[in-house]
């Protein structure tokens, strides 16, 4: 069974982004870019499934600019066997990415697609579910545990109030939550090995996909600032403030 793992190149999670003064977006010139953390968890999970013998090949995919090749090399350093870049310089929104991935699912016929539940830049939380709908596959989102056996995946999901477990027929789409696993550190030998692994580069047109935008960003602004309040000297003063000033208790 092949596992397809889509990964996104995003601003590193440690970078505090700045809104551009002209309101056209956030300033990502010269900031550190990394693999979306949820996608890193997805790569790790796919590689673990391969190591357990549940999968035979892990294929990492990224849709975006040429520099996404670095992200794909990272995926291969974690243990993906090969990579596909769908290169496109235009902004790609989740529906467009889902259509590109659907075309790759048709081509590669994976038994499982594992990807992050959301990207930490646009915070959309859409691509996995959209892919599942377009490819007419079952989905198990926000996974905290994945087991594959007998043509099915048993997936424990993080839902409001606790956990639930679903059994989905393969092929299926799984999206990862934060605590599915802790991705391994990539080692230098594995980084070197990843450089020699196969990377195919395609264009959206090669897959026959129209990647037009469905949303237009009119403006990006700073969120309203919340000012610091006062320090209170002791518990009694705190209780008094809450009762008489804030009137919340």
């Amino acid at each position: 069974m092949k596992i397809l793992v889509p990964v996104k190149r995003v601003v590193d999670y440690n970078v505090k982004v700045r809104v551009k003064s002209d309101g056209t977006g956030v300033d990502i010139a010269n900031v550190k870019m990394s693999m979306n953390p949820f996608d890193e968890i997805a790569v790790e999970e796919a590689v673990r499934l391969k190591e357990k013998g549940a999968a035979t090949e892990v294929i990492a995919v990224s849709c975006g600019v040429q520099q996404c090749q670095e992200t794909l090399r990272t995926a291969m350093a974690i243990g993906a066997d090969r990579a596909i870049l769908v290169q496109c310089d235009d902004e790609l929104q989740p529906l467009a990415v889902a259509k590109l991935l659907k075309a790759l699912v048709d081509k590669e016929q994976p038994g499982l697609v594992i990807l992050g539940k959301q990207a930490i830049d646009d915070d959309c939380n859409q691509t996995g579910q959209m892919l599942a709908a377009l490819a007419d596959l079952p989905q198990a989102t926000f996974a905290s545990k994945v087991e594959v056996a007998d043509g099915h995946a048993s997936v424990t999901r993080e839902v409001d109030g606790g956990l639930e477990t679903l059994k989905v027929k393969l092929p299926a789409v799984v999206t990862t939550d934060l605590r599915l696993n802790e991705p391994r550190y990539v080692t230098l030998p594995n980084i070197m090995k990843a450089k020699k692994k196969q990377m195919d580069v395609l264009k959206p047109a090669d897959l026959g996909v129209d990647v037009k935008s469905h949303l237009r960003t009119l403006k990006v602004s700073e969120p309203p600032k919340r000012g610091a309040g006062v320090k209170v000297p002791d518990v009694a003063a705190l209780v008094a403030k809450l009762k008489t000033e804030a009137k919340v208790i």
Partner: protein
Amino acid sequence: MAEINALVIAEHDNAGVRPATLNTITAAKQLGGAVTVLIAGSGSSGAAGAAAAIDGVAKVLHADAEIFAHGLAENVAAQVLALASGYSHFLFAATASGKNISPRVAAKLDVGQISDITKVISPDTFERPIYAGNAIATVQSLDALKVITVRTTGFDPAPATGGSATIEAVQAVGDSGKAQFVGAEIAKNDRPELTSAKIIVSGGRALGSSDKFNEVLTPLADKLGAALGASRAAVDAGYAPNDWQVGQTGKIVAPQLYVAIGISGAIQHLAGMKDSKVIVAINKDEEAPIFSVADYGLVQDLFSAVPELVKSL
């Protein structure tokens, strides 16, 4: 512009509607057209009745079948699509359930989804946070149909009473047959739900252990009738369950009162609670970033401050 006709896909437990649905209905009302609510459930006439009583709801569509018992995305999305004709806007709460289902509907309708809206500017233009709330984007949908998830903290709940909508039973779709519910572990307690609680008591890594977390925070939460939350650090350390996590990758909350105890205030935590009306921080480190957003800060060891606070309430 084409007529505005909103369909709100309700989140419910079959007996009644969940609070998040009320906030979603408020967002739907702001679009300016009629609001219809879909209840897809199993043995869900209680939820349909509750939806019909919500202020501002014109009609309730009620699809009742065993296949909706566990809210499987494949089946609920298929039901929405079967009823889609005639509606211009499809709104879901941006909860685990809503986020799971809505992109399936958007993809099948071949439209982009507008996730996590916090403000309706016009029927096609919305505000939504990006980069974990570090920036706010104003986005315009270029599609005729809009599929939207609503961040509940951005909208007041619609009054649960005052409406008298008609309830129309609709034909349920068939089972997708591809996904099966196996089981759930939902924590049972008498506390309010984290995302709709008026008061939240939230603990961080400084609590030191799961036992201490409960021993110190539970009496305070009991006294205040509060929900319990936690920082990512506390959840990562195993002091609190995953679904208590408040922050960028956890729950987004905006209660009347948020009491942050032993929480340093990492950006990712602030992203989840900075819209709370009143924030109290108790931390012995006076340099902790949490104090930069707190209305009332108390620099004191939590192990002495919290019991003292419980006693004086």
